[in-house]
């Protein structure tokens, strides 16, 4: 695919931790409305890619262009405000806060009221927050109709699958143009994974223009949701293309099964 029309264009991205090269000259492009699956063994650089994209790591080389803008030097919160939202492999919800609060924080950057409204012109603030709570309820109801009624419970009281959903809602609440999902099926049993795939399809239908990059170990999820797959090993991109093409790629099979198995 051509990089010129891409929403996200990563060129020659390199991330180093001391002597360790975690990402080594990686090129990835994502088009508008496209879902790209990222696969690779543990430690191959998938999450490092996400951390560099969201500004948590400073790249040692290469460049990231998002909607025609270079992200070099921008802080994580500034990148988030440009429209990149993400989830984390190990859940990063605030368990003591309510379900609604965990989603509302995603809308925090788009707020239109300030300190004076919070204290003196309270009605303006409450009007805005009421609309935000309604949107949070709407997002929750997409995945589970019972969740909006639990909005004022602490998120720590929800089961694992619903927590994952709240985290996806938090990312969607920011109305992003690019959504990064870091191994959403981690720690889920097959039934929960099936529910997750249904959830991801709902996201696709609700937000057709949204681009998604998803890291997954579960090949059924990758095959089911992604239009294009990128495979990583040792910080390098080793294959790219349709799921079938990447799955058949010799280097990918070697990375997952070991060279002997492929050679045999």
């Amino acid at each position, binding site marked *: 695919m051509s990089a010129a029309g891409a929403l996200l264009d990563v060129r020659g991205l390199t991330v180093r931790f001391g002597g360790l090269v975690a990402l080594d000259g990686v090129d990835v492009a994502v088009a508008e409305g496209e879902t790209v699956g990222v696969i690779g063994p543990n430690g191959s650089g998938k999450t490092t890619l996400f951390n560099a994209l*969201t*500004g*948590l790591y400073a790249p040692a080389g290469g460049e990231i262009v998002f909607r025609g803008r270079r992200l070099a030097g921008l*802080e*994580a*919160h500034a990148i*988030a*405000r440009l429209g990149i*939202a*993400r989830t*984390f492999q190990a859940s*990063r*919800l*605030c*368990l*003591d*806060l*309510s379900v609604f*609060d965990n989603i*509302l*924080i*995603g809308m*925090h*950057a788009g*707020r239109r*009221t300030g*300190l004076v409204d*919070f*204290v003196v012109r*309270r009605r303006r*603030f*409450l009007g805005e*927050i*009421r609309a935000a*709570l309604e949107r949070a309820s709407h997002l929750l109801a997409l995945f589970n109709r019972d969740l909006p009624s639990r909005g*004022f*419970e*602490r998120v720590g009281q929800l089961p694992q699958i619903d927590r994952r959903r709240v985290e996806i809602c*938090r990312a969607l609440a*920011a109305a992003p143009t690019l959504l990064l999902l870091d191994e959403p099926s981690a720690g889920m049993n097959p039934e929960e994974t099936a529910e997750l795939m249904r959830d991801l399809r709902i996201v696709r239908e609700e937000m057709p223009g949204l681009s998604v990059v998803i890291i997954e170990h579960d090949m059924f999820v990758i095959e089911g949701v992604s239009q294009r797959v990128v495979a990583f090993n040792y910080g390098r991109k080793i294959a790219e293309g349709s799921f079938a093409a990447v799955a058949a790629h010799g280097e990918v099979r070697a990375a997952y099964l070991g060279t002997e198995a492929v050679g045999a």
Partner: protein
Amino acid sequence: MSRDLALVWVAEAAVFALVIAGILAERPWALGAAGGALAAAGALVRWAPGLRTALARAFARRRGAALGCGVVLALALPLALRSSPYWTFVATLALLYVTIGQGLNLQIGTAGVINLAGAAFAGLGGYSVGLLTVAAGWPSWLAVLVGPWVAVTVGAILFVPILKTRGHYLALVTIAFVFIFNILMNNLEFTGGPQGIKNIPTLHLFGYAFTTRPVLAGVELPAHANFYYAALVVAGLTTWVLRRLHDSWLGLALNTLRDDEIAARCSGVAVARGKLLAFSIGNFFIGLGGAVYAVIVGFVSPPDFDFGYSLVMLSVIIIGGVDSIPGVILGACLLVPLPERFRFLHEYRLLLYGVVIVVMLLYRPRGLWPAQVRRYR
């Protein structure tokens, strides 16, 4: 519904009456009786499930009335304590701790910015009032309005570089700052050294001197009642502002960066800016408490603002309830008067605070009045 109303008023009036009885009891047996009655009432509510749910329901349905009744009782307190200027002063002090505690709670409780220099920031407010009135000749009310900004400015300048660090660096630096502040106040000439600043003029508002004895409902009150009401207004306004800030985008963003900084950053929260804002707003109210203290007492000196008081302020939050606005009020109203009532334990005061904090953290880590989830009301 009117039964709920009666229940709310009776409960609050009963607690008020027992507390007053306990404060004014002169003989040990009277104190014991008042304390025993309070404990018995508490146990009754705790172990009688019917009464407990009825009370909880009444307070939940009649939030406005419960608050109104509390305000009425707070206004009536100087009348009940009119025979004792000393206890009127202690009540005033408790209200100043409410003000300071709310400011500190925004930093420590809401934003997780561990500030152990509460005493120093209160001292900056207090010393500013002392210098502005005694040395520069400003009127007291103007100095009280300016003092808190000194605390904010010094805090912002000193701590901008440190706010970006993570973990416990800030806590350590704030500890160092209290000690530096004390050494400076002890040794600088223009702050009066160990003697401090004396003869800070009292408040005059619209020609009314706060040293005149006020008459309320035909009863003459001690002059300290003036300061009690001033401190009540300050504590009330502070609580009102901070409750609204807590239940807002700001409170939400601060809670998020406290619980998970990475998640906050990836949700678009400017973490360093949020911490600085929380730190500055908090220091404003801590400084305000110190400034009002200076005009009430009439003098400031280094031992009024030493590290021990930072720990008292911290205890108010931990015992009341971290990030809980009503908890701060409860914590201040327990921690300030109780040690005064049990003067004979004065030597062991800090030790007792330590024991209480450890017990609280072990058995009731969320405090006596835990923070509730935000409802945006």
